């Protein structure tokens, strides 16, 4: 009886489509987030994350619709992030069928939002997304906003410590330096943050080889998020799980029929 490592595909959604050159040739609608969510579920994803990267209000409405449609047919936990600024936004997403929501910029602007959401819905719904990069701060890692384009000067380690006290249920640690490189997760960053995170830690950014997944676990991650390696078909979820199982990690086996 061991808690399994979680493998979490992340779908970046804008105006109803998963973005970038996705190459799922065996799907009818290649970039449809609902179809992709269902496929990843079938392949053994342990959770799913939707990241709404559209800025418009019509994009927001579309995301709610995607969440509703996905929650109808996918019975694994669903996290939704992007543009969440208030308790009302969280309520709307949870009602649409999200199980967890992730916040980033709004929490940096107003940290009390963390406690407000946790008080109303419980810490378990609240994932703090931390987009961090190497910088000249205490821990050597700085929190950024706007997809890593803007620095905040806030030390990532101090921020995670504070967020845990305020009541987040989980930390999603995105390395802006590693993101999209497929050169491996940011092991130094995971090692730095792990000791101050009293909640589960999801590593994100840089997954390339199968060995990269194991390295992030060794550095202290509880769960592993990846996007492009899955979307581009470089690895299937089953490949990652098979590799990790062979390396001695506890994974959730594929579902019963």
């Amino acid at each position, binding site marked *: *009886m*061991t*808690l*399994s490592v*979680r493998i979490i595909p992340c779908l970046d959604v804008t105006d109803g489509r998963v973005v970038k050159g996705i190459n799922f040739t065996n799907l009818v609608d290649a970039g449809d987030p609902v179809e992709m969510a269902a496929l990843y*579920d079938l392949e053994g994803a*342990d959770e799913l994350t939707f990241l709404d990267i559209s800025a418009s209000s019509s994009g927001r409405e579309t995301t709610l619709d995607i969440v509703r449609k996905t*929650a*109808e047919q996918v*019975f*694994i*936990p669903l996290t939704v992030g992007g543009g969440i600024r208030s308790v009302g936004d969280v309520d709307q997403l*949870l*009602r*649409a*069928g*999200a*199980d967890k929501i992730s916040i980033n910029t709004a929490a940096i602007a107003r940290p009390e939002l963390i406690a407000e959401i946790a008080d109303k*819905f*419980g*810490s*378990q*719904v609240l994932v703090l997304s931390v987009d961090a990069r190497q910088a000249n701060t205490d821990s050597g890692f700085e929190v950024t906003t706007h997809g890593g384009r803007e620095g905040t000067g806030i030390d990532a380690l101090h921020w995670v410590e504070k967020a845990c006290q305020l009541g987040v*249920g*989980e930390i999603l640690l995105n390395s802006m330096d590693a993101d999209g490189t497929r050169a491996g997760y940011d092991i130094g960053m995971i090692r730095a943050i792990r000791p101050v*995170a*009293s*909640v*589960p830690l999801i590593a994100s950014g840089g997954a390339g080889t199968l060995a990269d997944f194991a390295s992030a676990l060794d550095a202290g991650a*509880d*769960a592993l998020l990846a996007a492009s390696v899955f979307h581009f078909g470089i690895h299937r979820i089953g490949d990652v799980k098979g590799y990790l199982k062979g390396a001695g990690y506890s994974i*959730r*086996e594929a*579902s*019963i*029929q």
Partner: protein
Amino acid sequence: MIAILDYGSGNLRSAQRAFATTGEVVEVTSDLAVCLEADGLVVPGVGAFQSCMSGLLATHGDEIIRARLAKDRPTLGICIGMQILFETGLEPSRASGGSTAGVGIWPGSISKLTAPILPHMGWNTVKPDEGSMLFRGIEDQSFYFVHSYAATESVGSFQAWTEYGQRFLAAVEDGALCATQFHPEKSGAVGLRLIKNWVATL
């Protein structure tokens, strides 16, 4: 007909959809008469013990649960919906301080897990007793957990156990009353099978 007790707790849509996969009519409701007469009642629950308990009392959910048990009508508690069936919740809250009284169908308290990283979040394997009805065909599977508190003493006729930092109760079968600490509605095909097993007893 299956009623899902609506007492202001959590994402009830996913529970409704999961139970509807059995073909049963599923209604999310706080109507006392409907909850009493339903073939099966599901008591969900997310968040904190104290806030769930106060929501439950406000909708007379505790009376509904007791009245159903008096008539041997199947009732299933999920997550905090399992925890509130015990005597005491030790999860601190601003409203109650150190602990909160539960519905008290089962003896004992709900205590904090001894683990360095909480919540216990994710898929964990569950080991049911032999002869379990809920776990028929899914005796050695993983289910999705999200919680920091749990029951650690045995209650009911059949138990299922899991371990995170310490051993604790993952599920209980006690005549008409069943409960799971994990979320079957979020546990994929395995969770839907457990729901089907429960619905088959209605």
